[in-house]
C-alpha cells in the first residue's frame, strides 16, 4: 500500500519536473491541467495530491516558487525549475528510460525464447 503511493509520488514528481521543463513557470492548477491532459485520468479525482509533491520538490531545491498574477488577475503561486531541478530531471529521465527498457524486455520475453 505504502510502496504503491511512493511509486505514484515519484511518477508525479517526474511529470511535474517535465511539465515545468517544457512549459516554463506555471501555477499548481496549470500543472494539474497539463498532467491531466497528457495522462488523461491520473489526476481526475485527486488534483490536490499535487501540492504535497510540489512542496517536497521545493524543499529538495528542484523547483522554486514565487507569487505572481494569474490569467484572471488573481494572486497565484508560480513554480519554476531550478538548475538542480534540471539536473534531477535529466538523471531521473535516464533512470526512467533504463527501467522502462528493462521492464519492457521482460514483458517481451516468452517462454520459448529462453535458451
Amino acid at each position: 500500500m505504502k510502496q504503491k503511493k511512493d511509486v505514484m509520488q515519484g511518477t508525479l514528481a517526474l511529470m511535474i519536473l517535465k511539465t515545468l521543463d517544457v512549459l516554463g513557470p506555471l501555477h499548481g492548477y496549470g500543472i494539474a491541467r497539463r498532467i491531466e491532459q497528457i495522462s488523461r485520468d491520473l489526476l481526475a479525482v485527486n488534483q490536490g495530491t499535487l501540492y504535497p509533491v510540489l512542496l517536497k520538490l521545493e524543499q529538495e531545491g528542484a523547483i522554486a516558487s514565487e507569487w505572481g498574477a494569474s490569467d484572471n488577475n488573481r494572486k497565484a503561486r508560480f513554480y519554476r525549475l531550478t538548475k538542480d531541478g534540471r539536473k534531477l530531471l535529466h538523471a531521473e529521465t535516464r533512470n526512467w528510460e533504463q527501467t522502462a527498457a528493462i521492464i519492457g524486455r521482460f514483458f517481451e520475453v516468452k517462454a520459448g525464447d529462453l535458451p
Partner: protein
Amino acid sequence: MSSWKRFLARLANFLAPPQKDERLNEEIDQHIALQTAEFLRAGIPPAEARRQALLKFGAVEAIKEDYRAERGLLSLDTLLQDLRFALRMLRKSPGFTAVVILTLALAIGANSAIFSFVYGVLLAPLPYRNASRLVVLNETTPRVGLVSVSYPNFLDWRAQSRSFSQMAYVEQMSFNLAGPGVSRPENIQGDSVSPDFLSLIGVRPFLGRDFQPSEAQPGAPRVLLLSHRLWESHFAADPNVVGRSITLDGNVFVIVGVLPPDYRSLDKMDVMLPIGVWATNNPNAASRSDRGDSTVVGLLAPGCSFAQARAEMQGIAARLAKEYPAANDQFGVRLRPIRGAFVGNLQTEILVLFAAVLFVLLIASANVANLFLVRGAARGKEIALRIAVGASRSRIVRQLLTESFVLAFLGGALGLAFALGGIRLITRLMPHDVLAGATIALNGAVLLFTAGVVLLAALVFGIVPALHSAKWDVQAELKEGGRTVGAGASQNRLRAILAVAEISLALVLLAGAGLMLRSLYRLINVDPGFQPHRVLTMEMYLSSERYSRDPAVLSFWSQVLDGVRALPGVESAALGTNLPLTESHGRTDITIEGMALPKPGSFPHPDVHTITPGYVRTLGMVLQRGRAFTEDDNASAPLVALVNEKLARQYWPSQDPIGKRFMWGRFDPSSPNPPKWVTVVGVVDDTKMYGLANPSRLEVYDPLSQDVNRDMDLVVKSRLDSSSLTAEIRGVVASVDKDEPIFAIATMNEILSDDVASPRLTLLLLGLFSALALILAALGIYGVISYSVAQRTHEIGVRLTLGAQPVDVLRMVLSQGGKIALAGIVVGIVAAFVLTRLMSSLLFSVSAGDPATFAAVAALLALVAVFACYLPARRAMRVDPMVALRYE
C-alpha cells in the same frame, strides 16, 4: 544531497513559529477558482461547477495532512497535535480519566516501590571495586549449620589455597566506648581485620591510612579506622581526626583514618582495627577449635571460577578435618559470593513481591484496556467520521496510542508519589539491619524502570483497543442509527478474555497471600518457650581492666540486681546470657556420664545459658521437673545445671534426668585429672533460640556464680512502661559504675515481634497487592457483564415480551459471568499451583500447594465474581420490555 536539503528545510519549518496553512489555503482557493471558471466556460451552472471542482480536487483535509507532514518533521509535529487532542478528550470524560489514572498509579507505584528494593538489595553495585570476585567463606558443621572460622584454620586456608589471590579474616568484636569527653557510655561494634582486607575488597580509607602488614602480629599497636558515621557523630567530622584518640574498654586507641561514607559491612560496624590487636594476649587466636564471631573474605585469583575455588576449598577443609580431628571433625567449608551473603533470605521475599506487583500491573493494564474498549465502542462514530474525512487508519491508531501514553504518563507520575510513600512505609516496617546498609530510594535506576513500566502499560492497554478501533467498518458505523452490534462479537470475546486473565492473575496473588497468611498464623502460634509479656531486656558488658577478676564482676552484677529489684514496680529481675530469639549464642560440647564416647564432631553440642536465680521465673519458662537455681548454688557448692526437655529426652529417655551428671567439654580418658561432673537439678521447656520457624536445640543452663561471665543480659519483669524503667535502671547501673553502658534495650515482645517481622511484612504487602488485584478483577468482570447487558437490552426486552421470566434473564446473565469466572479460576489455580512453589522457602508448616488455601481463595474469587455479575444481572431483570423495544 537533495534529501539532506529537504531535511534541513523541514527542520527549519519545524523550529519556526507554528505556521498556519495560509499558503496552501490560498493555493487551494486559487486552484478551485480556476477549475470552477473552467467548468463555467463549459456551460455548467455555477453551483454545480463549484461542486465538481471541489470533487475533482479531492479530500482537502487529507491533502493538508500530507502537506503538513511534508513541511515539518512529521513525528514531532503531529505528536504535539495528538497530545493536545488527547488532553482535550481526557478532559471531556473526567470520570474515565480519573479511574484509569488512579488504577495505573496504584499499579505503577507498587511496581516502583518494590523495584526500589529489587535494585537497592539485589542489583545496586556493592561499594567494593572487586565486588564481582569477592567470596565469603564460613565453616559448616551438621550439628549447627553455618559457623565462624577459627583463626588457625584460616591461616591454613590462606597458605594452601591457589584459587584465591588474597584472603582476609574478619572478627566481630564489641567495645564499650567511655572515658573523657563521652557524655554517656555506649557499646559499639568493631571489625578486626587482616591488614590487607581493605585493599582486597578494593576500598581505600576516606581519610588517613590503611593498615600495614606488621599490624597482623600480636602486640600490634592499638590503632583503628572510624566508620564515617562514628566520625560524624562523635568527632564532628573533624578533618584532622587522624592522630586523635578514642578510649575503648578502657584502652586508648589512636585513630589512623576514616572509612568512606558508602562503606558497607555485613553487620553493624563502628570501628575497624587490625587483627593483631585482637590476637594480642588472646588464646582464641591460637586455638583451632575456638570459632569466635568471624568470617573470611577471599578474592578469587584471575581466571579462577567460583566453582573451582569451592572444589579446592572443600579439599583443603577435608584435609584439615583429618589432620586435626579434635578441632575439625565433621567441619566443612561453605563459600558464598559476597552478594549472596549480603542478600541472605531477602532475595526470595523481594522476588515474590516483585512478581506480585508485576501481576497487579498486568491486571490493571487489562482493566484499563477493557475501559478503553468500552469507550472505543462509544467513540466508534467519531472515529468512523474521521476516517471518512480522510484520516488514515495509522493516524487513528497513533492518536489512540497517544491517549494511552498520556494516561500512562499521568498514572506514572502519580504512581511515583505513591512509591515514595510506599518506600517510607516499608522501610519503617522492616526489621532493622535486614537491609545491611542497602540504600532504598527513587534513584535513576528506579525512575528508568518506572519509565519502562509506563511504556509497557501503555502498550499493553493501548495497542489492543487502538488496533480494534481502527478496524471499524466505516459504512456500518455511519449508517442511520448505527449500533455497535457489528463490532460487538469479536470485541466482547476480547473483553471476556481480558476478564479471564484478570481473574486468573488475581487468583495467583490471592493464593500467595493466603499461603503467607496461614504460614504466619502458624508461626505466631508457635510456643517460644517463654512468656514475653512485660519483660524488658538489656545487655551489659564488663570489658575494662577493672573487671579482670571474678569477685569484682560478681560484685557488680549483684549490686545491679539488688538495685533493680529494689525499684518500685519491679516484680522480678535476673541475669542471663544468650536470650532466646536474639542473635547471640554460645555453644559447647558436653559429655554425658556413662555415654559411649562418640567421634569428636558428634558430642552433644548444646546452647549454654549462664543465669542467676530468678531467670526461669522472670522469663515465665515452665520448670517441668526438679528445682530452679537458688542463691545457695554458689562457687563453693556442688556444680549444678538445668537442661531443656529436648536434651533430657535425647540422652535420658524414659529415665528421671534429675541427679544425672555431665561434664563440660569432651571426656578424655587419658587425662590424669578426674572429670568435674555437673549434676542436673531441673528440667525446663525448650525455648526458641534461632527463630520461631526453626526447631529447638539442646540447651543447658548453669549458675552465674559457678561460671562467671562479663557479658550478661538483664531481664526485668515489671508493671512499669519500658522507657521509664530503662531510665531507672540506667540510674542504678551508673550508681554502681558510671562508665558501664547498657545497650541492646528491647522488650521480649519486641524481640518476638522482630522475629516474625519479615514474614509479617511480606504478608502485609502481598495481602495489599492481592486485595488490589481482587478489586480490579471484580471491576473487570463487572464491566464486561454490565456492558454486555447494556448491549443486549433490546434482546432482553424481546425475550421478556415473548414470555421469559425475569429469573430466566438473571440466570442467563449470571451464567455468562459464571463462565468467565470459572475459566479464570481454573487457569488461575493451575498457574498458582506452579508459581507458589517458588515461594515455598517463605512458608512455615504450610505446603505451597495447600488445598485448603487454594479452595478458599477460589471460593472467595467466585463469590466476588458472582456479586460483580449480580449487579448488572439485576438491572437486566428490571428491563421494561416496552422501553427496550421502543428505542429501536
